[in-house]
């Protein structure tokens, strides 16, 4: 088939219709007398037969390069798009729709350039509207990242883009608070359905930090702070910190406490996944931060149990071990409870897949014990920690890490 004709037909479709999804077809299913033959066009969905893709691509590539002034001085596609948008040759809103369309092909969602171009356009569009109107635009952006994350799970760029959305929403209006609340709710339901998606948990962490910052603008967003840092630098820096006991500080503590319960419950219900255990590592780190920075005293759990007598948690029907007030001993207890569960189940298990997930659950529980022991300042010379490492060396066959540590 004549490539010029193909190119023209394709352009006709693109000029006349709004397209929502593009697919490459392994075979041709239209008749020569169809209007857009050989392309398939049904309800805003465009299908391109695979056998013509390279022909059209090479042809269009030539036209594009020539249009930009010949091989020697051509510009990249994205740069040309930016320049055209800047000079108002392209409508930025259509440009966003074009990217929406590109993202229907999973491969394109892994190009950071396209995501950056999207940021650039969104900010461009926002210049023309007052900031009150931005929220609905941000909501649309959330929808797009969600669709991409469904199409291409754990897509790094989609999730960092989603963090960026949170950072762009000011934290001083009730509307923003509702936005953050909504996002937290969405993420809790997301991780329940995608239990092995650590990227989802990690975004949930961003939501917690963002909401905490809403309650207290001085809340640290924890950028650049590791477990080692809070043990060494901040332990010292925060000495004699006054206890913050205002209502907003209590709301922050409640937020994290609920998240810890939610996560422990997930771990009990879906054994054998690294992601919720890693999330629990983060939460224990955050909890320690709350203690160090004065949001939470070492002994004010009783007070909080009263605050948190609310129905929400009781309705959840959590196992009592999940509801324990988090501290070193209670967290170790939780982990040991998980291990006892596993040991009971392993005995009568002849399903290999389930057996494997039990072993993973046990490894993760032990590793969490190691994590939390060190978080609360126990060193590897400590007898309990040594015993833990010996256990880990015994069941972790993957890397040499625990074997080396055990020597």
């Amino acid at each position: 088939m004549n490539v010029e004709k193909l190119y023209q037909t394709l352009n006709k479709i693109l000029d006349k219709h709004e397209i929502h999804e593009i697919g490459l077809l392994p075979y041709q299913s239209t008749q020569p007398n169809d209007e857009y033959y050989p392309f398939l066009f049904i309800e805003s969905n465009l299908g391109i037969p695979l056998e013509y893709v390279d022909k059209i691509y090479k042809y269009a590539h030539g036209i594009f390069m020539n249009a930009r002034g010949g091989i020697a001085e051509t510009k990249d596609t994205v740069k040309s798009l930016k320049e055209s948008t800047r000079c108002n040759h392209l409508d930025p809103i259509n440009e966003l729709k074009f990217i929406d369309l590109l993202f229907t092909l999973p491969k394109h969602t892994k190009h950071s350039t396209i995501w950056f171009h999207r940021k650039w356009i969104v900010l461009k569009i926002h210049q023309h509207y007052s900031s009150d109107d931005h929220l609905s635009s941000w909501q649309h952006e959330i929808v797009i990242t969600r669709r991409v994350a469904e199409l291409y799970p754990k897509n790094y760029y989609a999730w960092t883009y989603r963090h960026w959305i949170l950072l762009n929403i000011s934290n001083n209006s009730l509307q923003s608070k509702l936005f953050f609340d909504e996002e937290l709710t969405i993420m809790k339901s997301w991780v329940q359905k995608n239990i092995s998606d650590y990227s989802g948990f990690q975004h949930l962490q961003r939501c917690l930090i963002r909401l905490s910052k809403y309650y207290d603008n001085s809340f640290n967003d924890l950028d650049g702070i590791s477990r080692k840092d809070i043990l060494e630098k901040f332990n010292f820096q925060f000495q004699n910190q006054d206890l913050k006991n205002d209502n907003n500080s209590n709301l922050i503590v409640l937020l994290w406490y609920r998240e810890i319960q939610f996560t422990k419950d997930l771990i009990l219900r879906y054994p054998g996944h690294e992601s919720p255990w890693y999330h629990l590592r983060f939460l224990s780190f955050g909890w320690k931060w709350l203690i160090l920075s004065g949001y939470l005293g070492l002994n004010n759990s009783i007070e909080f149990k009263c605050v948190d007598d609310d129905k929400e948690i009781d309705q959840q029907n959590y196992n009592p071990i999940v509801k324990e007030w988090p501290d070193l001993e209670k967290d170790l207890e939780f982990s040991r409870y998980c291990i006892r569960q596993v040991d009971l189940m392993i005995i009568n298990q002849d399903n290999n897949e389930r057996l494997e997930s039990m072993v993973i659950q046990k490894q993760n529980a032990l590793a969490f014990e190691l994590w939390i022991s060190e978080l609360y300042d126990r060193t590897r010379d400590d007898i309990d920690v040594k015993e833990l490492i010996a256990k880990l060396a015994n069941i972790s066959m993957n890397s040499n890490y625990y074997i080396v540590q055990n020597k």
Partner: protein
Amino acid sequence: MTTEKQTPLLVDLHVKYIQSLDTKKDDLEYWLTEHLRLSGVYWGLTALDLLNNVDALKKEDVVKYVISCQHDNGSLSGFGGHVGHDPHLLYTLYSVQILVIEDSLDAVNVDKIVEYVASLQDHATGAFRGDEWGEIDTRFSYGALSCLSLLKRLDAVNVSKAVEFIMLCKNFDGGFGSSPGAESHAGQIFCCVGALAIVNSLHLVDADLLGWWLCERQLKNGGLNGRPEKLEDVCYSWWVLSALSILGRLHWINKEKLIEFVLAAQDPEGGGIADRPGDMVDVFHTLFGIAGLSLLGYPGLKLVDPVYCLPKHVVQRIGLAERYHV
């Protein structure tokens, strides 16, 4: 696996595979990857050198091609991913790496490259932009510092500010992400640890904490993933391993199982290495598989430098010190 006899590294086939890459102009894939052409030359050439076959690509052609990707436009004199493509920091790094391997830096105007790279630093944060449009990523911090270090011109940028930005991207687990608050990712960790090594700041890395996280990337089949509960992938044999190697903790992973995994991802007919056994090969995974094997001490390969991802003899030739093993 243990009963089967392991296929050794298929050196001749890999050399042929890399040589054949520029002859596939009828494939759609060739056209769709045009923006990666220059990167492909860096990946291929480095792999060939490690395989003791650097001459398999004609030096003259390689240098001529690289020069044809450079722009000559004041402060925008970086390199594009192919002839006629926009200048970008990453392709500028690849160009410098290729020219260093070919010992041909004198073929280009080094001052212009330095000026271009320096123009990409954001003075407020110390971060680097990938190009004039402003995308920020710790990959670019590595790209800039590695490039300037190879050109011996680190003085052209604010190094302490650059370090400040990288450290802001450190996470609770000791890992690093692409920007402040972004998830720890083994690829970004290589970039951040490598960049810190280049500017003598490895003391800022939480080596034990990060080393633990990196070791947790090794899976039952011996392969490494780049983030929790992701699939194993040969390229992480480089990203994870180079970081461990820079931190002097390579013995924390199971080398034998990883070697087995990488070798199983070779194409025994056409050469090249895939992301994992059974998949299609590409030059990117071919380099990182071979470079990983080199770090693991696989016999017959030249040694690779874990910081610069260049053959060690090249880094030594230009007189850069070994900047790893804290």
